[in-house]
């Protein structure tokens, strides 16, 4: 299926859903805001989750991003995923909260399988992220239909509803 590649390499500051930004800094605000504060900054490799149409039309001031991990890092953190059955569950989309992306084999942009973490969603100022993308120069972009598939998986995760009181089962 060479005609449906998963990724392509892009440059410039035009952002699309599925763009992968490496080492994106995210600021964690402290509980109290004063004139001078020390804030924590964390860095993740992230994938853009906001819709491409909103990004192109500049209709967002904040861009939604989710952290991504190489599958090998994921396995090291939770050895359960070293079991092929767990990885198969991940690949088949049985695990809400995670989404598996294919390996990238483009020269100089090779990656392992990537795991998108829907449980950690961050929003980054649009102008900041476009400038960061421009500075990073080349980056990977997830291509259709795989990025729509990613978006659908995110929607499926996000639309879950948990209610505190259950209706008792009928007997």
């Amino acid at each position, binding site marked *: 299926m060479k005609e449906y590649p998963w990724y392509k390499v892009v440059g410039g500051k035009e952002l699309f859903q599925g763009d992968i930004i490496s080492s994106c800094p995210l600021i964690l605000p402290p509980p109290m805001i004063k004139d001078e504060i020390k804030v924590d900054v*964390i860095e993740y490799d992230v994938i853009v989750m906001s819709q491409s149409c909103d990004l192109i039309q500049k209709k967002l001031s904040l861009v939604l991003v989710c952290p991504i991990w190489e599958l090998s890092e994921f396995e090291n953190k939770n050895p*359960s995923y070293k079991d092929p059955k767990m990885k198969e*569950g991940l690949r088949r989309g049985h695990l809400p909260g995670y989404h598996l992306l294919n390996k990238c084999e483009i020269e100089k942009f090779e990656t392992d399988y990537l795991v998108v973490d829907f449980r950690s969603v961050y929003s980054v100022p649009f102008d900041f992220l476009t400038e960061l993308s421009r500075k990073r120069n080349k980056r990977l972009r997830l291509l259709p239909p795989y990025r729509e*598939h990613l978006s659908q998986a995110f929607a499926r995760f996000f639309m879950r509803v948990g209610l505190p009181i259950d209706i008792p089962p009928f007997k």
Partner: protein
Amino acid sequence: MMYQLPTQDITYQEHPVQYSYTPSTGIEEIDIRIMWDSVLSNWIKKRLNIPFYHNLICFINTDLSSILSDLETKSETLRIEEPMIHRSQKTISEEEIAIEMLRHDFIVKMPPKKRYKIQVHVKSLRKGEPRLIESNEFLVTE
């Protein structure tokens, strides 16, 4: 808003879909049920692909591996090239996956790649205001 069950598109008179999903339950329980629904859905789809004469197969002394080799469950992510299962190995069944997933804690809390502190001077503090967006027609092409 309710979770759209993946099994709802399956209608099969002899195998009605029966699931214990209720809209009011805890998120963890929903996650487990989503996994089971997904597994069940794939299993039912696989059953639907088996021809009617399948029940007779048990009376025939034959090598089933050659007949059933094309009954692999089709999922949306099936085209991810799969080094995880070597071709020589048996394909992992939906049941095996489900059992394995329920045995383990599947949530992974990954630490950031880097963490540091910065000193920030707060210039102003103001209440945010809604940003009004006018809708217009557009077409995204790439």
